């Protein structure tokens, strides 16, 4: 008899289901039409989301803590699955036009998604790295899948800078291992508390390198430079995926490492504060000068990274709930905004800002939805973006980073200008004939409606989502035990 290793499958169920879906998409792609594969993929994601429910509050783990299905992991996994499902829904309508309509797209997307889930569930640095690489490699393929010059260029850029980021990250892992003698988050955390002074510099270097590596993945300035090019060059559906799911996963990794394992390590918090401030300023100012709406959204994604990173400056019991709420809102908002772009664009270059003039009179529903998304991104109540920003400010402020909060507040004005310029243009009367692509897009419309309804509801009643994660004690054990 073969002896099975000590593996419990239950905590891995959400990941396994997605992985199963990915394999099924790969195999069935030979016989089934692409739409059927996509529908199958959406069902897999739904199943995976359902499988999160029985794991809630159980705190299960597998592989001796290398994989943790604790509440933070489950909450973030939900956001990831939501982002994946929204991407697939939008792709149902737009993939054909974007010349992405083959089953490999769905397969790659599910592989990437399983990688992101592994990051969220990671309990040690190797698991984290595996998840990150699975996600990144699938991501490189997704970007180039369209077979156009623009997307090839984006893919190459994404690959080169992503690989650099990974290399730096691995270096950071090595140094951290050298300093603490452990790859396990819990082990690192306990080693950090009782660290020899001799190992301090090594640990600091490791932590900062890890931060830089993650900085590439989440697009913290000055490591953000690939973002606008890749997001605007990639097919819009893929941009949607990259700017939501991939970013959420990278933040999940950041939270695991810096909110858990390296929480008490010296140095990184100050570095993160500086990077955050730089990201806020650079992202917001650069977005002001964009003429292409998709590119604007790319820079706005950089700016939002800055706001998200504010939550990491605090203690995890405050920052964790704020981060997970913000990520949920960010995913819904960005997905809905990019879905509108995907639905209306004539080419994969997206829409020019000037094309937005009078959109309200041609596509009132999409225009209002996009305006709500932009208002939410700008942080205007009663939309959820306000609550998210407010929580982020609060976390930074309460932990002595008032100056970063003030910089965030000031850079929000630039954000307001570029979001509102677009929003206002949409409502200005315009007599030129329609310039948008016209067609029936039920799935896209559904995902836009879902996003807009959710950000409105979550803005008025934040507790619908926040109430689930607002327990400090679930965030104090991010490193596991």
């Amino acid at each position, binding site marked *: 008899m073969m002896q099975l290793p000590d593996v419990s499958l239950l905590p891995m169920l959400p990941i396994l289901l997605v992985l199963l879906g990915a394999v099924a998409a790969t195999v069935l792609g030979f016989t089934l039409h692409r739409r059927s594969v996509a529908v199958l993929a959406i069902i897999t994601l739904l199943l995976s989301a359902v499988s999160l429910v029985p794991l809630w509050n159980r705190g299960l783990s597998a592989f001796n803590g290398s994989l943790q299905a604790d509440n933070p992991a489950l909450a973030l996994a939900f956001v990831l699955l939501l982002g994946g499902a929204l991407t697939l829904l939008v792709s149902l309508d737009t993939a054909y036009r974007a010349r992405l309509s083959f089953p490999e797209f769905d397969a790659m997307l599910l592989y990437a998604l399983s990688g992101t889930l592994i990051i969220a569930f990671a309990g040690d640095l190797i698991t984290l790295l595996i998840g990150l690489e699975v996600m990144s490699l699938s991501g490189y393929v997704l970007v180039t899948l369209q077979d156009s010059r623009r997307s090839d260029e984006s893919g190459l850029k994404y690959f080169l800078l992503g690989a650099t980021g990974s290399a730096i990250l691995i270096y950071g892992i090595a140094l951290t291992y050298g300093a603490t003698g452990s790859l396990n988050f819990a082990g690192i955390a306990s080693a950090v508390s009782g660290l020899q002074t001799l190992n301090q510099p090594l640990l600091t270097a490791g932590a900062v390198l890890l931060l830089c590596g993650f900085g590439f993945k989440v697009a913290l300035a000055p490591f953000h430079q690939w973002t606008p090019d890749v997001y605007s060059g990639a097919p819009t559906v893929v941009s949607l995926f990259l700017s939501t799911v991939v970013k959420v996963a990278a933040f999940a990794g950041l939270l695991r490492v810096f909110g858990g394992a390296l929480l008490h390590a010296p140095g990184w918090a100050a570095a993160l504060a500086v990077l955050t401030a730089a990201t806020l300023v650079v992202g917001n100012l650069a977005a002001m000068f964009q003429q292409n709406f998709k590119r604007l959204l790319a820079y706005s994604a950089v700016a939002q990274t800055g706001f998200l990173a504010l939550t990491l400056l605090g203690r995890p019991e405050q920052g964790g709930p704020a981060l997970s709420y913000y990520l949920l809102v960010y995913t819904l908002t960005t997905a809905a905004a990019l879905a509108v772009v995907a639905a209306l664009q004539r080419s994969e270059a997206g829409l020019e800002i000037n094309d937005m003039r009078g959109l309200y009179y041609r596509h009132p529903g999409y225009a209002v939805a996009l305006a709500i998304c932009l208002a939410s991104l700008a942080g205007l109540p009663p939309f959820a973006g306000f609550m998210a920003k407010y929580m982020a400010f*609060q976390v930074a402020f*309460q932990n002595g980073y008032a100056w970063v909060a003030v910089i965030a507040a000031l850079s929000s*004005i630039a954000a307001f200008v570029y979001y509102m*310029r677009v*929003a206002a243009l949409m409502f200005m009367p315009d007599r030129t004939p329609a310039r948008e692509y016209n067609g029936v897009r039920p799935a896209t419309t559904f995902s836009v409606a879902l996003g807009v309804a959710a950000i409105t509801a979550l803005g008025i009643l934040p507790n619908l989502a926040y109430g689930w994660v607002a327990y400090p004690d679930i965030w104090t054990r991010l490193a596991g035990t």
Partner: protein
Amino acid sequence: MIHVFLFLPMLASLLLMITPVRWREEVAGFAAAATLGIGLWMWGAGGAALFSVGWIPALGVTYSVALDGVSLLLALITALMTFVAIIYTARRIHNPGTMLSLILAMETGLLGIYAARDFVLFYVFFEDALIPALLMLAIYGKTHRMAALIKFGAYTLLGSMLMLVSIIGYKALGGSPSFALSDLIANPVKGAAQTWLYLGFLAAMAVKLPLFPLHAWLPAYHEQNHDSGVADVMGTLYKVGAYGLFRFGVTLFPDASLELRPVLMALAAFTAIYAAWVAFHQTDWKRLLAYAGLSHMGLVGLGIFSLNETAMIGALYLLAFQNVYTGALFLAAGMVQERVGSLSTRVGGLMTQAPILSGVTMSLWFASIAVPGLAGFIGEFSVLLGAYQVSPWLAFIAGLSTIAAAVYALSAYQTTYWQARPLGAIRVLDLQHTEWLVLGAPLAVAIFFGVYSGPALNLIQPVVRALIGGGA
């Protein structure tokens, strides 16, 4: 009842989107009238007591609302002017559904500002009033609205964001369990931190007030708005800065208010006189009204910043009724524009063909330049009387603005309504249909409260007394 009062306009606003086109005006008018009716009913019942429930318990954000004297008065004025604006919009603007919807949405924001007794809730309503204002400008504005819009938005948000940081800071540093005003007052921040937080809070309020040098958005905003003046009526209602300073500024930052009093009073006095001077040079009625409003807001600011009971009562009185007559004047300017196709102050001779419109406009201007017997006088006189006790020179300088007001108002009035009608100019119609109500109701209010200030003072005085007694 207070919740119905607050959210009925918003519900009606959403309802308008699915209402058939031919019923929209009736629905909007009914909603505005019902809101005003509920407001009056609450006045009869003595306001609404504090209602507080947790909104986001984990963060200490509560939904706390109350309508005491000052809030009730301002809310009633808002409801009245919204009703007037709705009546006028229904007649003046072609296919008014969107505009009606925006007006009602904005009403909820404004009423909420006056009712909020939680700092975060106040911020939420504060921003909520902004979105419809921006949309009005975007949809109904003139050629150069984009610049005006961005200026307006950027200034406002600059203030709002700093206020948000200061709100967060107040709770964090003071250690209050929630953002409810009573909790914040019980856990004050002391020392230098209070001054810094006050400056952040002040940034938002000074933009809205507006106070020199943060006023630059105001003239462009009014000039680029729709000619009818409806958007401007809502814009004048938007002057919630003074109320915010009164309700939150003075109570939460007593030491800082006292410390910064000379500077702020000087800025307010300068704003009053500077705006009056600029108003004198305007040839566009809307710009003139914008600067006139700015000048009055300087006086309001002077009253609030002086921390003197008389001046503060006067400031709130002025704040409440300034909305009425300035709002009506914006609508009157819109009526003139509708008739002669221009907002220029050099039209000439309207009096001969539209005597009632001209007469009512003149009476409203009299209220605005503080002629005794009209509501403006009581407010301005009390402000100056109170401010004199604190700083005679600043009161004197600010007092000059009331003389300047007479100069700019009457000279512009003279070139528009008197003089000769140019040869070949179209015939100007007098007030018609609902226009009687639109200008008549505000004028009646201005006269009533100019002669008989008791009911309004009864609302303002106890609150101010309690606040000065407990705060400064």
